[in-house]
């Protein structure tokens, strides 16, 4: 609602209603809160970070003349309140725009190459003058169809929408050192119902290609994708039939109303500057009231502070923006095959056993995410990477066989479990977990949770046959906790949005939340275990097989791939409010 008034052209008699119209309009705009269309900063922003701790030369091995590529798929589903079951974009669908990307890696602040962990003369060493081998290729693809269970699968349908090749000489100058760098003006609209994936290549890391005397690695590769997005109102309990889980009970997300009381000019009364009563309009007095409320030091407030507390009065309606976090899992130890599982330095299983006949361990990884400002989680997606292309096994002892990978779903007893929980007790008592999302994927149910399956670009694939199982990576929805099945808010069954954030005395009391997702145990909603004291999220991913993950299991072969090159990802998305800094 914008401020409206009648103009006062020269010669028009000034009457009370002409003055009162402005007062009424301003009062209404403030009490009903200012919409984003009336803000100069009318768009939100979210940054999507992709971090790979170690990119190694064997990932682009050309010895078998097939080459290979690193793939990072992702998607940004709409929040639950914006979800449309027909999954098509209309003029009302909120969308994002990829505006710029920044890229960097660790080069020791020198124009140098860093030797690869698999280099037989020693890893992590400074190879002067080899930086020109860091030629990189970055390509962004969008999937044109989705391989949902109800439609025909076509894993390779994709269109390249962006490509960038940076010659390695950019990183070889002692003066410029070329990175980290940023590319602006990309301006690609992002469809919330499509899958996107980056293909990342460093084709010259292998010494047989570069001509340098050593193999090179890329430490700490980091990309940040900057998106412009829409502003929305933050979640309140009343927005959803099932409420918002774990939201502070003192406000339930609702905004307190600001009341601006201006004069009520009456017909027939003289219009004054300051003297008189309300009927006289007292123009200057009311302008002072408006000025005092809008400008410094009070200004127009919105959002949450670090302790999940909104301002005592709020004048801006749309104060939140979309967010999506990419949490890397199994990153450095990616490309895990059944034949190698006891030989590549993994925990949670027997060690030093040459025999792969019966390895009874599990694969597991975990990450911790601090909750510095509150967020409302609307969904969790697991990106399972099976991309394991052929490579030359000479000097690459991690790989027993040179062929392409195979999917693990051939084993009926294989389970891939992904969970997200809030955690309290950091540097304190009351250590507790509150489950937020969970899925236990098996060969029986994995197709019920799939969002998309992705094969790298090309038909046949340009960069080698990563996995013979038809697709290289799969995206799965991991449902939020809730006692009952709940559809119409995401690709599959999904619990209500889940609020997480630190608290103070006023925001510690929280609304009830579920125990487990309905499909994986359910349970009656109750008081959150973290009791409003959460400080971090913990993300876990385990893989296990009661018949063994090793080829001793008759349903597993040497090439069964549990995690592909570059590792897996867990995407956590939802809404995040502006920061009220007090």
């Amino acid at each position, binding site marked *: 609602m914008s401020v409206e008034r009648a103009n006062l052209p020269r010669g028009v008699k000034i009457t009370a209603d002409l003055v009162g119209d402005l007062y009424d309009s301003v009062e209404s705009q403030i009490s009903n809160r200012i919409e984003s269309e009336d803000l100069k900063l009318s768009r939100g*922003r979210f940054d999507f970070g992709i971090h790979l701790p170690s990119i190694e030369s064997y990932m682009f091995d050309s010895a078998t003349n097939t080459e290979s590529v690193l793939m990072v798929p992702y998607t940004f589903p709409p929040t639950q309140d914006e979800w449309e079951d027909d999954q098509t974009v209309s003029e009302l669908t909120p969308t994002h725009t990829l505006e710029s990307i920044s890229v960097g890696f660790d080069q020791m602040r020198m124009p140098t190459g860093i030797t690869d962990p698999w280099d037989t003369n020693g890893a*992590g060493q400074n190879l002067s003058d080899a930086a020109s081998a860091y030629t990189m290729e970055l390509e962004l693809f969008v999937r044109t169809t989705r391989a949902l269970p109800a439609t025909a699968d076509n894993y390779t349908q994709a269109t390249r929408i962006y490509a960038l090749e940076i010659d390695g000489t950019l990183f070889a100058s002692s003066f410029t050192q070329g990175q980290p760098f940023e590319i602006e003006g990309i301006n690609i609209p992002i469809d919330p119902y499509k899958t996107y994936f980056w293909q990342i290549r460093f084709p010259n890391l292998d010494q047989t290609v570069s001509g340098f005397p050593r193999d090179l690695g890329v430490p700490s590769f980091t990309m940040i994708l900057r998106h412009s997005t829409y502003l929305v109102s933050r979640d309140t309990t009343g927005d959803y039939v099932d409420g918002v889980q774990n939201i502070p009970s003192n406000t339930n997300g609702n905004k307190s109303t600001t009341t601006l009381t201006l004069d009520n000019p009456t017909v027939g009364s003289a219009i004054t500057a300051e003297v008189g009563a309300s009927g006289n309009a007292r123009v200057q007095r009311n302008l002072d009231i408006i000025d005092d409320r809008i400008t410094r030091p009070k200004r127009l407030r919105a959002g949450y502070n670090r302790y999940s507390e909104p301002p005592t009065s709020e004048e801006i309606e749309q104060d939140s923006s979309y967010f999506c976090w990419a949490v890397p899992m199994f990153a450095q130890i990616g490309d895990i095959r059944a034949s190698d599982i006891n030989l590549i330095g993994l925990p949670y299983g027997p060690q030093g056993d040459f025999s792969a006949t019966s390895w009874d361990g599990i694969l597991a990884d975990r990450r911790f995410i601090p909750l510095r400002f509150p967020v409302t989680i609307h969904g969790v997606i697991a990106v399972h990477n099976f991309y394991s292309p052929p490579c030359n096994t000479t000097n690459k002892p991690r790989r027993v066989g040179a062929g392409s990978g195979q999917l693990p779903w051939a084993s009926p007893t294989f389970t891939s479990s992904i969970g997200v929980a809030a955690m309290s007790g950091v540097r304190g008592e009351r250590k507790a977990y509150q489950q937020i999302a969970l899925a236990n994927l098996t060969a029986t149910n994995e197709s019920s949770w799939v969002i998309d399956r992705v094969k790298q670009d090309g038909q046949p694939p340009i960069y080698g046959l990563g996995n013979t199982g038809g697709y290289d990576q799969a995206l799965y929805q991991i449902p939020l906790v809730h006692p009952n099945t709940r559809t119409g808010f995401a690709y599959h069954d999904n619990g209500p949005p889940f609020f997480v954030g630190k608290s103070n005395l006023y925001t510690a009391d929280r609304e009830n939340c579920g125990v487990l997702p309905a499909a994986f145990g359910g349970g009656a909603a109750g008081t959150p275990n973290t009791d409003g004291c959460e400080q971090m999220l913990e993300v876990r991913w385990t893989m296990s097989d009661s018949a063994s993950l090793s080829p001793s299991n008759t349903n597993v072969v040497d090439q069964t791939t549990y995690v592909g090159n570059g*590792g897996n990802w867990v995407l956590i998305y939802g809404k995040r409010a502006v920061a009220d800094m007090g």
Partner: protein
Amino acid sequence: MSREITKIQHSDKTVVSGKGLDDSFRDVQDRLNNVEQRDEASPLIPQTIIGGYQPRRWDWQPNLPSPVRPQDLPFLRHYPQFSPEETRVKGTDSWGLDIPTSVGNQYVYTIPLRFREPVLLTDVDLTLYCDDDGEWFPADWTWNNLGPGPLNTGDFVEDVYMQVQIEMPYAERDATQDVVATKLGEFSVDAQVISPRTGGWTGGDMSPAIDGYRASGLHLQCEHLNLPIPANSSVRLLIVLPNYDNVVDSDLTPIDRGAVRWVRDDGSGNTLYSSYAMQNYSWAVTYLSRKEG
């Protein structure tokens, strides 16, 4: 006095003219129908970049050729005695650690970030996860014998650093000009444990369980920084861990590698795995970016 929202002032005993009213009302209307950043108390949106990994352990890979023990990326050795290394990592001296000519005395994991627009860096977090009983990730960061300097048996190490360096836009690509914006270091790591190493949990574990191991280890944090990062700046988060391969005591006498429980050897003087391989990593950088128009 409405000095900011409009320059038009009305006062008694002067004519309240129609034009004056119209001008001042238009100013109010324009200000509220196109609210500028200066009138928003909260125009900044938090952003979080997340990373980390689980290290592999070379001592669990028996088929590797001996004596090659590759070092893993992303940790790289730091050689402060060699130019220009002395400016790559600044102000991270460690108690009594010798600096042999051939090896660095620190391992550094550097995360580079680039900001085209100005942002406000608010928090940096690093979690070093270790198992409760040290089966898989066994670091407990204590000295078994007398440590260097004033450190005694059972004291915690003080050789961990986390710092943020800003490569200022008007002095780019020259590490000597990088600003160390914040540094967490020279502290006893037991002040940073997540919680008492064992026990104290209320309720059950989260799912999926990982051999029953729950959160444990160190959580290093630099919070409430409110560091203004200029436009077109490169920012680097540095995680610095000690290399105890050649530890010496206060008299510069080499200390047995078994003196510190943050490096393990095979009993014959050969390092099996170094400090960077003994914990699982999670890091996060949180900053505030402005909404867009």
